């Protein structure tokens, strides 16, 4: 039946296994993940290439915005308080778009987690990606699992010193490149690149690179799985988002148990035997140091490398793949009931297989339908609503705004002819990277006329103002109303701004104050 002589048994101990979990103050036991190969590993290489590519290349993308704005596609210009994202330019008061995106990211995480479990952790989390990258370096220099374990246990020889020094040196270079890429999001990348290497960049640039180099090196190289297990809050939060229809990396003990290293002998003895040959391949590849056969556990980031490892073994044995697989709790429970005859016996593989060795029809398999359930509909709806709301708001937003501050002291001034004057600080926001002429008009307030300090125009109800591209223009405006036309101590009226070329406009309702008895 099972021929497991071709399968190498690995002396792998799950250092973070629930069974052998150490006290929290015990020293960390090192993990030496073995290189996995298979479809999930290939997918993870792809995700790694894409995410790292996005991270490193984005600041170098160019986007033409004309002569009055930077041409960097993605730029957080903190000094000038502007955020550029391709065709979108955001001013500080529009930061709610970013907040909206963060809410979408949150709801998106709910959606992803409730369908495919901790996929964020396993594939795209920067911690996972960078640890993967650091492990590539470690394997290239020190070799795979066994070589690394041997090196680690061995005495400090020149060879060990050279290997370790070069590994840490490369890690530091990766860390520096990570920190280096980060700062390019905050300034013109080509300029900053030159400045960075000629020693003329701002001190904050060097400090940022140094801090991020240190954190990348520490988190990716030294701390690794401890960041996920002890520091990150998401494992706790995401555990609450999983339900019985969420896909998680699962050891299917309904077909694996009873596991045996000597299947032939056991079969010969007439005992039932499962598919698991206890080769520990799943434990050896695990970057978190757990044994997936203990069931779903906090430490598991669902990177699916154990699936690849186990599938490789199953292929060698000529068994169906998927002894470890993405499965939902409900399917797993159904299959367990089947394998244990509704819980009346221990797992017996013969209950899930027909006489010719294939799976019985009663075995539950994952169906895509399970992704679509009320919970995911709600998440999708919320996510899309926020997205559509942001999109609508973005497409209809004003690129011309007016803000008005009434003078506080004095509230009004009586002039020699008895008329009353109020002063206002008017702020015009030209939020496009082009110069504009904006007409400011007062509406309402019978007989009132305005004058603008520094602009030599006869007083009137309308004043054209030229505003620089992408700038706020602050004006001191005086509005004067003849004595005979004052109606009350506080009249409301409107400041209206209009761009005659684009027909954009905005209004601000202001108050005109007058003394009790205006003559």
């Amino acid at each position, binding site marked *: 039946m099972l021929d497991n002589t071709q399968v190498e048994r690995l002396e792998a101990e799950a250092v973070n296994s629930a069974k052998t979990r150490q*006290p929290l*103050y015990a020293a960390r036991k090192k993990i030496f993940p073995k290189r996995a190969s298979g479809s999930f590993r290939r997918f993870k290489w792809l995700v790694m290439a894409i995410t790292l590519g996005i991270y490193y290349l984005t600041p170098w993308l160019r986007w033409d915005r004309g002569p009055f704005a930077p041409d960097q596609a993605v730029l957080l210009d903190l000094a000038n308080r502007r955020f550029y994202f391709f065709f979108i330019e955001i001013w500080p008061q529009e930061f709610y778009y970013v907040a909206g995106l963060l809410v979408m990211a949150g709801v998106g995480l709910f959606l992803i987690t409730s369908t495919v479990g901790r996929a964020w952790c396993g594939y795209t989390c920067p911690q996972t990606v960078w640890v993967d990258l650091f492990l590539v370096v470690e394997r290239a220099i020190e070799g795979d699992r066994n070589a690394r374990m041997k090196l680690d246990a061995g005495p400090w020889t020149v060879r060990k010193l050279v290997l370790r020094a070069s590994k840490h040196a490369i890690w530091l270079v990766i860390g520096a490149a990570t920190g280096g890429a980060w700062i390019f999001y905050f300034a013109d990348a080509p300029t900053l690149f030159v400045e960075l290497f000629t020693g003329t960049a701002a001190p904050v640039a060097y400090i940022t690179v140094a801090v991020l180099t240190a954190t990348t090196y520490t988190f990716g190289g030294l701390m690794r799985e401890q960041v996920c297990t002890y520091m990150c809050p998401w494992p706790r939060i995401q555990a609450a988002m999983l339900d019985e229809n969420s896909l998680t990396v699962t050891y299917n003990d309904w077909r694996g148990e009873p596991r045996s290293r000597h299947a032939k002998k056991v079969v010969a003895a007439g005992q039932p035997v499962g598919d698991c040959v206890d080769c520990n391949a799943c434990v050896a590849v695990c970057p978190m140091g757990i044994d997936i056969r203990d069931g779903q556990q906090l430490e598991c980031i669902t990177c699916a490398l154990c699936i690849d490892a186990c599938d490789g073994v199953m292929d060698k044995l000529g068994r169906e793949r998927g002894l470890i697989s993405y499965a939902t709790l409900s399917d797993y429970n159904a299959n367990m009931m089947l394998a244990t005859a509704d819980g009346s016996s221990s797992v017996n593989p013969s209950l899930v297989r027909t006489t010719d060795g294939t799976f019985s029809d009663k075995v539950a398999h994952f169906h895509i339908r399970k992704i679509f359930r009320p919970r995911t509909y709600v998440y999708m709806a919320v996510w899309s609503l926020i997205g559509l709301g942001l999109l609508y708001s973005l497409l209809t937003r004003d690129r011309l705004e007016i803000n008005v501050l009434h*003078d506080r002291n004095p509230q009004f*001034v*009586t*002039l*020699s002819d008895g008329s009353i004057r109020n002063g206002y600080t008017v702020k015009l926001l030209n939020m496009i990277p082009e110069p504009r002429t904006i007409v400011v008009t007062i509406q309402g307030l019978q007989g009132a006329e305005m004058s603008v*300090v*520094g602009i030599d125009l006869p007083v009137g109800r309308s004043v054209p103002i030229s505003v620089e591209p992408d700038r706020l223009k602050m004006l001191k405006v*005086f509005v004067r109303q003849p004595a005979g036309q004052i109606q009350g101590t506080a009249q409301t009226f409107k400041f209206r701004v209009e761009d005659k070329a684009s027909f954009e406009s905005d209004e601000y309702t202001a108050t005109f104050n007058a003394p009790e008895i205006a003559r």
Partner: protein
Amino acid sequence: MSNEHIDEVTGVSTTGHEWDGIRELNNPLPRWWIITFYITIVWAIGYTIAYPAWPMLTSATKGVLGYSSRNDVGNELAAAEVAKGKYVAAIQSKTVSEIASDDALREFAIAAGGAAFKVNCVQCHGSGAQGSKGFPNLNDDDWLWGGKAEQIQQTITHGIRFASDTDTRVSEMPAFGDVITADQIQQVSAYVASLSGPVSDQALVAPGAKVFAENCVACHGDNAKGNKELGAPDLTDAIWLYGPGETAIAAQVRAPKHGVMPAWGARLGETKVKELAVYVHSLGGGE
């Protein structure tokens, strides 16, 4: 301690303290912590050598780096002066009208003048330059001595009725209580009030006009519009330094009050006065 207790789970000895069965492990401090602690001690010694630290009899050690926070402030102030230098030089070389018509210079002068106003002028003219009884409102368009930028500059530089400045602006309305009768004062007050509003007794206006023509036109003019050369106020407008109405006018005719404004030229210097003039001129009443 004679009876040393070893914790069973960890194999670590305890301090012997016990609270309701909870014992305190006697673990050594973490090595990284101890090392950091020693480094801070070394650092502290180096720091006290590098920076001013040890108190001596009269002062403290200077430190080998020669650092002084007072010098830092001095340097920062000097740097600020250098940064302002361009504007200050331009303000020195230009007239106040020229400054007021240059956007960047005006903005700088208004900011600098506004700050100087809050230190030197608000005591009398108020924080919003709105004045009060006896202290002119600088926001309005009524000026005793002229509201052009240069005229404002002149007023600030030399003050008003400020005896120790020979160029100070002087005007003194005689106390008419000794010159004309009480009835005449009542009549002329009614006439003056009638120029800008209703009066209590219309019958007083005509004789009041006669009194005015005989006593007041020399300074206030035939039409009572005043004379800025003499600092004589316009009596036809809505603005009254010592209050509107016949009673207030009569009081000012009988025994006039005269405010004094100090001369600021010598005290603040020409640049600051120019900035103040531009600021006051920008408040809305500037001519």
